[in-house]
């Protein structure tokens, strides 16, 4: 009974967030335009060799898709007192947190799906292991969305969340193998790269599209670990607000 109540609460919050925020026309159009512009920019600059870059582009779409809107949604709700409406309800903090993370993951999944479609049609990306691709992307979306939640629940204002997100997002683009293979980075940067979740997203997507000989199970396990740590830290941040 209790579990069913919690699941119903998670589902209700997820549906509400999708309806009230994520699926608004401006966000849908951003979700479609952002991957198109990104894919076109790379295609026009360097039409050859983009198949290698495609998994990185999908990873980037997942990163921005999950963290951007989620940070706005959580901090906005905090500001107008709407988040407190959720705290008033007979739901655990865990359920509220999971609902918020799922919202970010679903929106990130939508943008990643558009990017995948573009990479397959425009850049010739081939998904050799669809199950690994979908599973790896789904886990990545949860991990990245959990990171977004950690940032959003730790700050007060929308601009603070955006600034803090960028401290993580931009280094990740350059260090996690999106453009430059992690193996070719100097050792100190390689160490930093392996401490960032996007590195494992890129590795998983590469493994499932380019059939590279990396161990996907380790990547999957590390993403689960990242998700758990981010969720735990966010839960603590929510608890601090309870005082």
């Amino acid at each position, binding site marked *: 009974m209790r579990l069913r109540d919690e699941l*119903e609460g998670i589902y209700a919050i997820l*549906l509400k967030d999708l309806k*009230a925020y994520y699926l608004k026309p401006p966000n849908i159009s951003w979700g479609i335009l952002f991957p198109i512009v990104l894919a076109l920019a790379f295609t026009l600059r360097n039409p050859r060799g983009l198949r290698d870059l495609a998994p990185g582009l999908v990873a980037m779409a997942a990163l921005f898709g999950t963290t951007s809107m989620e940070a706005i949604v959580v901090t906005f709700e905090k500001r107008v007192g709407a988040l407190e*409406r959720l*705290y*008033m*309800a*007979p*739901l655990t903090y865990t359920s509220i947190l999971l609902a918020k993370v799922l919202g970010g993951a679903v929106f990130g999944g939508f943008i990643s799906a558009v990017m995948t479609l573009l990479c397959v049609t425009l850049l010739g990306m081939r998904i050799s292991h669809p199950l690994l691709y979908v599973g790896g992307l789904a886990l990545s979306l949860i991990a990245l969305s959990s990171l977004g939640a950690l940032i959003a629940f730790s700050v007060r204002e929308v601009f603070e969340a955006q600034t803090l997100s960028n401290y993580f997002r931009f280094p990740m683009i350059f260090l996690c193998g999106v453009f430059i293979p992690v193996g070719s980075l100097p050792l100190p940067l390689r160490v930093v790269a392996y401490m960032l979740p996007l590195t494992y997203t890129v590795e998983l997507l590469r493994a499932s599209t380019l059939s590279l000989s990396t161990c996907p199970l380790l990547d999957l396990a590390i993403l689960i670990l990242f998700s758990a740590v981010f969720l735990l830290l966010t839960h603590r941040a929510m608890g601090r607000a309870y*005082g």
Partner: protein
Amino acid sequence: MHSIVVEGLTKYYGDLCAVDHVSFTVDAGEVFGYLGPNGAGKTTTIRMLTGLTRPSKGRAWVAGYDIIEETLEVKRRIGVVPEISNLYDELTVWENLEFISRLYHVPRAERHRRIGELLKLFNLWDRRDTRFRRLSRGLKRRAVLAAALINDPEILFLDEPTTGLDVVSARSLRGLVGRLREMGKTIFLTTHYIEEADQLCDRVAIIVRGRIRAIDTPENLKLKAGVKSILEVELSDRPPASLLERLRGLEVEVDGREIRVHTDDPQELLRLLVEEVGRSGLRLLSLRSRPPTLEDAFIDLTGLSPEVMRREKGI
């Protein structure tokens, strides 16, 4: 039977003691007012009782459940109207209530019937498809009150329910609170409107700087405070010195041709006034006797002016 039991509840924010060892009980079906100025600790108390803030010390039971150990059980049995109308701007009134009903696990079969009943009770049926952000302040408060009742709670917490409303909307909302009392709900109401507490509450606690100064029925508070009746007299001219001399020892305010006298024996004062006014050749133009109000008791008990409270709230 007590719906709320509070024992030594205390909340510190750093070094600041927002609520200082407050203790009280609220009976089932009672409308309990929590009256005090801005920053007195009213909202902090409500936040602790509704599981939104963890107390630093003390214990409390709401609907028989411990607010710290059994927070979810407490939340299942209460409805909360916070100071700000925090439903979702982008959802319609119906969608908001449907969402809240899911959060409170209202059975699917009952959900639509209950939402319909509440919308009709609060005269919001015609606005059910209007987005929340398009409602007036008064209608927003009604929608928030409807949302607080979606789980048919035993106890309702109303935090400054009429703040910021125009006179008509505030009166209408007070009428609704009266109907909820008739429905047998226990109501915990914080307000800085003294007349609101006087009008709605069975008992009132006066809280100042985190401490409860007095708890009793409005009538007993007036008696306890030793507040006197006030006689307001308008004369045909300024009061002569002989009249003021006769009133020496009483609390007298003179404003031109009007005098206001505080007395615990209005009959004797009236006799004296008529006699002295007649002797000085003046005429009594008007005479009003006003019984003590809760506002008078509040001033006496706290030393605070109600005007100060209203100014603090920006009203």
